């Protein structure tokens, strides 16, 4: 008895339909057995093994194979029956409805996230603006962690948000504290009376941490994303944030953090700041004191000053603090001890930062005293490193920059690259100081000191123990962070690291050590 072997090119019905078809054909008069299958090699092999067919048909995996055994006169009837059945339109489901997990913002709002008022968006950049717009249309504030969002899309969503008094934090916004909740890379900071708006993630982290360390707290810490104060975007998020903080009765002092914006943008932002009617501390890192003070604002030259002056303004209404650590006898004593421990010929600074704003602030604070200073992210007054993978002279690097993070995690999360670089810089006989930032909080490494300390001890031993480079670190964090600031400091100090709690202080110490070496 020769079986009927027929294949239907590129034909598919679900397996239930195929099993039903097989059963119905097998019940036709004169038919002994029938099987309908996708014509994959494995299925055909099995049919051959089972003796259903004698040889392999020339079918492909996307074809449907029908094999029928029976009386020869009945085979054509079976094939006609199959063709008629397969040409019928596929039937729908049984009409039952099951609860599905949310796959869209609107679905989440209807169920699990009922009452939410903020959407945090982390998608590839090409999709982020579309998701943000959906959230804004639903009346949500938005934080966009994604980067690589086209600037025209950023402008469109920010205009939409600004017109409706909705925040669009980002794109490329990595830090915020909203209603006491740290979002993305942020620290555990107590609630208080200071509102902070910043175009820089680590800048926001430093300022909020130092406010906490000074015994005060924040109402909101609002990130704007790095492009917000560009001429194209025009500071739309900062303007919205200022309006919201101005209308918030719990916010009694406001801090603004950014690199110096274009003049037209600065004018708009400062006008909005004035319109809040509240004390505003302006920290345009790298701007001249007179430029800001001449417009009637309190000007902070460092992130530390921004935090401390805001606390002073809140407590007494008068801000006086300056990051003048160089004048401190205690700091000079530390500098002398560190300089005295260095071996002959060690004379250069190697800054290995994970925070971009810390790197930028260090460059600003040292560029006047170290004219040959180099960086992978240079300022106008400093030089670009000729070789990113080999330092020379005084060098300060942002290891979190795209140059170093393509295809690998950010150094705040994965310290591997920085550990390699610590070993490399220590082995250079001209390295005097290795300057580090240690950023704590949510998103950061769970115990950064525990991986840095052994690497530092090993590097110092390899560099000759006594006379090896000195390590200066600033910890950006709080005693309430999961990593706990004081415990991190203890671990680093036990490894011989000089620890500060502000970048400005660490940089002042570095400067004093270098002056001692020269002297």
């Amino acid at each position, binding site marked *: 008895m020769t079986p009927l072997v027929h294949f239907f090119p*590129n034909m*598919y*019905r*679900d*397996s*239930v339909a*195929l*099993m039903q078809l097989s059963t119905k054909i097998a019940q036709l008069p004169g038919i002994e057995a029938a*099987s309908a*299958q*996708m014509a*994959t*090699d*494995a*299925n055909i*092999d*099995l049919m051959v093994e*089972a003796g259903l067919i004698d040889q392999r048909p020339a079918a492909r*995996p*996307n074809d449907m194979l029908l094999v029928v055994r029976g009386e020869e006169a009945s085979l054509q009837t079976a094939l006609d029956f199959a063709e008629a059945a397969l040409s019928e339109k*596929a039937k729908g*489901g049984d009409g039952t409805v*099951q*609860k*599905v*997990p949310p*796959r*869209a913002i609107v679905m989440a709002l209807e169920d699990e996230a009922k009452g939410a008022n903020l959407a945090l968006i982390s*998608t*590839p950049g*090409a*999709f982020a603006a*579309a*998701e943000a717009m*959906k959230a804004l249309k639903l009346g949500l504030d938005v934080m966009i962690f994604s980067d690589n969002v086209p600037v025209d899309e950023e402008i469109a969503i920010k205009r939409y948000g600004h017109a409706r008094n909705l925040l669009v934090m980002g794109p490329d916004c990595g830090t915020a504290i909203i209603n006491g909740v740290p979002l993305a890379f942020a620290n555990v900071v107590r609630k208080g009376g200071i509102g902070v708006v910043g175009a820089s993630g680590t800048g926001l982290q430093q300022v909020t941490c130092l406010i906490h360390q000074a015994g005060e707290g924040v109402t909101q810490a609002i990130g704007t994303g790095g492009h917000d104060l560009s001429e194209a975007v025009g500071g739309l998020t900062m303007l919205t944030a200022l309006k919201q903080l101005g209308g918030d009765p719990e916010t009694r002092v406001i801090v603004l953090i950014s690199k110096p914006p274009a003049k037209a943008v600065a004018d708009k932002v400062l006008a909005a700041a004035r319109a809040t009617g509240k004390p505003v501390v302006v920290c345009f890192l790298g701007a001249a004191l007179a430029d800001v003070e001449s417009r009637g604002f309190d000007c902070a030259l460092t992130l530390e000053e921004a935090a401390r002056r805001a606390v002073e303004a809140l407590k007494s209404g008068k801000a006086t603090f300056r990051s003048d650590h160089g004048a401190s006898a205690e700091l000079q004593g530390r500098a002398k001890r560190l300089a005295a421990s260095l071996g002959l010929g060690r004379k250069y600074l190697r800054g290995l930062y994970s925070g971009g704003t810390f790197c930028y602030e260090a460059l600003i604070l040292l560029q006047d005293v170290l004219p040959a200073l180099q960086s992978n992210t240079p300022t106008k007054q400093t030089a670009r490193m000729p070789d990113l993978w080999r330092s020379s002279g005084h060098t300060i690097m942002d290891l979190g920059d795209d140059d170093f993070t393509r295809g690998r995690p950010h150094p705040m999360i994965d310290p591997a690259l920085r550990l390699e670089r610590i070993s490399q810089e220590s082995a250079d006989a001209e390295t005097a100081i290795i300057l580090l930032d240690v950023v704590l909080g949510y998103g950061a490494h769970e115990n950064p000191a525990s991986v840095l300390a052994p690497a530092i001890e090993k590097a110092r031993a390899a560099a000759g123990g006594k006379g090896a480079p000195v390590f200066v670190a600033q910890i950006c964090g709080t005693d309430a962070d999961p990593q706990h600031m004081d415990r991190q400091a203890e671990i680093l100090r036990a490894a011989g690291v000089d620890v500060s709690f502000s970048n400005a202080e660490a940089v002042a110490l570095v400067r004093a050590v270098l002056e001692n070496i020269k002297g």
Partner: protein
Amino acid sequence: MIDVQARDVGADIAASPFAGAVEAVFAHACTVSLDDGRRLTLLAGSEEQGMRIITAFAGEWGRLHPHLHVGRRVAADRGVLSGSGFRIDYRRNAALWQSPSFPGCVPADGWRPGLLEAKAHLDAAMRGLAPEMTRTAAYLRFADLCRKLHRREAADQALHRLVGLGPGLTPSGDDLLCGLLGALAAAGDARFETVRRGVMPHLDRTTSASKDYLAQACTPWWTGLLHGFFAAIAEPEGDIPGAFRRLAARGHSSGIDQAAGLVTGLALAAGHSDFIPLS
């Protein structure tokens, strides 16, 4: 020209331009072979999500399906996939799906509480399936594979006989392997590499749609429903009945087969020799 709105889109489907040709059209799915050698799948009326899947609303599929013809060119630009007579917008209002990460380690309890509960649901569902020759053969060969995973050559031979075996658009053998690959990747188990290397050369032996799923499992990427089931097993208070119900609703037996592969793989990786379901 009809305009179709996608419901979900996988994150690996670039917003940048690409082009290709329709490779296969099924009742509720379509595979597209891209000029860069990759593939994407269009699905309809399914809860499934994947890194290289665009899912249309079931109602939209009825309008789209008549325009899908094997060999016809399609092209995508700025989040719109266009072909002869249709446009699919997968950017504006589609939810983006990103494969969650794989933990890469076995927890101290070896997922035991979750696995025991999952296995009970799996056993009940499997009892409800009608016997089918190729599916039964796939399960027997999968069990054979699990016993041979520590021997590379033997595992390769078992995989050769398993890929593409079983009923349906995604044959049971492939679904079992998708589950197994997800489990071994989640556990950080070295046998993942044995299976991946053994599967890749045989991808052309199965249907186009199944090939996509297997290739994604080898990357490794999760698909949405399979990850939902894994997460429910791994979490202390996970909704295992709900996650299993959603996965099992995939195809006739595909979801159950994937669940069986996952539970078996997790039990294997965690060394629960007392209840490895299919070994």
